[in-house]
């Protein structure tokens, strides 16, 4: 993935997490479920790779969510 697309995915993931943070529940779990439900596999793989590479720009909720996503997707992070 190019830096531009990665940056876009980071922004989108942070947006999702911010929305669930605002709902004051299990934000990381909800974020992971959202990414699983609405993001295509290539997008999920890209954000997993980005986290594996340090996850620059990802907020803490997304970091936890993507880690959980990696476990459920079976691709690790």
């Amino acid at each position, binding site marked *: *993935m190019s830096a531009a697309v990665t940056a876009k995915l980071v922004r989108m993931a942070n947006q999702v997490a911010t929305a669930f943070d605002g709902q004051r529940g299990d934000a990381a779990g909800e974020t992971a479920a959202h990414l699983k439900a609405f993001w295509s596999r290539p997008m999920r793989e890209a954000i997993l790779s980005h986290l594996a590479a340090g996850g620059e720009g990802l907020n803490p909720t997304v970091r936890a969510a993507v880690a959980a996503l990696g476990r459920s997707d079976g691709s690790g992070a």
Partner: protein
Amino acid sequence: MAYLRIPDFGTPPSRAEERVTLFIDGQSVTVPAGTSILRAAQTLGTAIPKLCATDSLEAFGSCRLCLVEVEGRQGTPAACTTPVAAGMAVATQTPQLAKLRRAVMELYISDHPLDCLTCAANGDCELQDMAGAVGLREVRYGPEGEDHLDLPCDQSNPYFDFDPSKCIVCSRCVRACDEVQGTLALTVENRGFASKVTPSQGELFLASECVSCGACVQACPTAALTEKSVVEIGQPEHKVVTTCAYCGVGCSFEAQMRGDELVRMVPWKDGKANHGHSCVKGRFAWGYATHRERILKPMIRGSIDEPWREVSWEAAIAHTAAEFKRIVAEHGKGALGAISSSRCTNEETFLVQKLVRAAFGNNNVDTCARVCHSPTGYGLKTTLGTSAGTQDFDSVEHADVVMVIGANPTDGHPVFASRLKQRLRAGAKLIVVDPRRIDLVRTPHVEAAHHLQLKPGANVAVLTALAHVIVTEELVDEAFVRERCELDAFHDWAAFVAEPARSPEATQAITGVPAAELRAAARLYATGGAAAIYYGLGVTEHSQGSTSVMAIANLALATGNFGRPGVGVNPLRGQNNVQGACDMGSFPHELSGYRHVSDAAARQLFEAAWGVTLDGDPGLRIPNMLDEAVEGAFKAIYIQGEDILQSDPDTRHVAAGLAAMECVVVHDLFLNETANYAHVFLPGSTFLEKNGTFTNAERRIQRVRKVMAPRNGYEDWQITQLLANALGYPMAYADPSQIMDEIAALTPSFAGVSYDKLEAMGSVQWPCDAEHPDGSPVMHEAAFARGRGKFVLTEYVATDEKVGPRFPLLLTTGRILSQYNVGAQTRRTANVVWHEEDVLEIHPHDAEDRGVRDGDLVKLASRAGETTLRARLSDRVAPGVVYTTFHHPLTQANVVTTDYSDWATNCPEYKVTAVQVSPSNGLSDWQARYGAHAARRRQITSAGPAE
């Protein structure tokens, strides 16, 4: 069906429950109390002569033709204005009445041109009919007196003429404009013999306030108001009932035909969405179907730098299939995808997603609802359990309070707006939440009780502040919440919205809405009786679009405004089949009926029916397809009926994505902007040339009927089927009714839908199943689709799109009455007389600061790009806000919009773009480059030898 005039009962029906029995010409008839004698007689089949009366308008009593005699009463009262009474004995034909009626007709005819044989209305003229009905045999008043026969004909309107010499001043047109349309553009000027129907203050129709809805033309009993198409072609001889292909209201029309030529579209009186009304688009703007720019032959080219080459259908389909197969072989099946259109039928969109899932082998299918109402899908499914408006349009007649949020119904959904205005004039209260002063805020005989003129992007803060008032002032419908909603979620939500930080006062700096005004609006919504919310893209097209939809649902849940007429949450869908396209599984994560692709049980149903294994992972959304294309992973796309280059945000990114693909297939009526990047063009059929169904914003499934053969050779569903077969996935539908049968078999909410049912009922609203065999006008009556309603916390998060020194203004976009979406259809009609180009509305203060005068060419620049267009000074927008439309490709308004989007759905944030406006003396570089590029890429070589 043969051309038959629908019976006219003369006056509207009475809704009284009390029944009254009377006798008309000795026959007994029982009708609701309050019914006119005229209507009661017609129910017996007794046609009393009439001219000023028609059953779409209140009785007027001016023509004096419908006089009757009533036993025991003196005189000859007008049957239209006289209500029935128990035991009344009415005589409709007596020597005295015959004499009176002939005398009245004599006077009318004495001042009417006797050119019936050459008149366009010959055979469809009530004046002519009445002359026969009353037995007129002579006119004793000669030509030597004064008359109106030399009055000039007003031909200014592009669609109809007004010939006052043929006007009998019955006021049907004036009343239609008042009562049906609600524009009040017409009047009768002067008195007595000088009386004359006139638009506005003696202006020509085109220059007046007239919105060309056609209600006056339809109401006219003579040839005074006549469609130009009737003048040019002649009277129709048969008609077919079909559904309009413009906005989400879904008006039913009679396509009135002469052979296979369309003479006129007349709104169908029995249409349940429109009840015989129309707007300028559906009524008149159908000429694009035969526009010279329409493409009728398939075309291919090796690269987008080559001219198009016309080929046979066989060659085009074979070429497309070969290219798709090559790309799959080289790049994998994930390199393919498709986009379907809300302008296409349910059957067509269902087939496109089936093509992708079964033949492409992935879920890379998306639809244009991505860029409009996808947040509605997410928000309403989360809170209520399904993605649909809760009411039928008739529900508005029962509303006491109407809140319109981010919608402009008089422009975007005009026929519903007329219904709404009727209700508002009858006393319902209106709250408008919009950054712009839309017409509904103040229009003749309608004025909003509150206009919350918020800053663009502040929807969630405003909606949550409304909730704050409702909760803290104890206006919650506790019984409803206790009975119908998840209580834990409610308590969390109530505590959240009650926090002082969410009060109108605390958020005023963010929202721009005076706290007292917001509080008053909240009180009115919560306590004013049955309260309905209607919303549009001003809610969804934001970075928090889905949150706003949930905030709206929260308001209606908290106040108990669900499950009965007059209330609810109603998304006004932009295009005719947005609801249907979403229902049909056009999103990459959902099968038809909103079942997630990861739902193994749902997948198994489809797998068994389609004989393939389906992917359980969501596919790519439109913006993600474009991103992947730029990355080199997404190589081919089939686009049916959409023009993403013009309609989607950040045009330059869309162009880059399309340019990076190896095979772009555009299936459309015209060489649209997207086609400039296409390698295959498959000509489409218009709604007049195919069979199918549309589902409107009230979930109403209605038939689209073919009135003429497709000029391109195939209906659109047939073209998708050809492509599927060429790809090796067999499809063998002989008729779209078979596709609907498959939809019904696989989609629980459509389980009871069939063409036979639609023929029998006219239309049906889903859910239509064993539990609701006749459909569901109102949803969530006893319980929500998800069981209990769910409150969701709606924290306001400011958009990342910030104003600053470089871009200090906020741009918001919308649409206008005469144009539709990207304008592909309406720009190819005479509607351009009302909107030749997109303009930029700017507040006079902002214009003054920049040295911009009304009509100046200005540069509109954002961080995404820049364009030029003309400025229109207007205080409809607040200082700091500018507004434009996206109907014209020359403007390319979406060059300016950004790729920011809704957090949940990626719906673009069209409504908030930080911009700067400055004087300009010419086209932007992009416009100049694009204009040359477009001209080059639309070139077509002459047809070569047969393939």
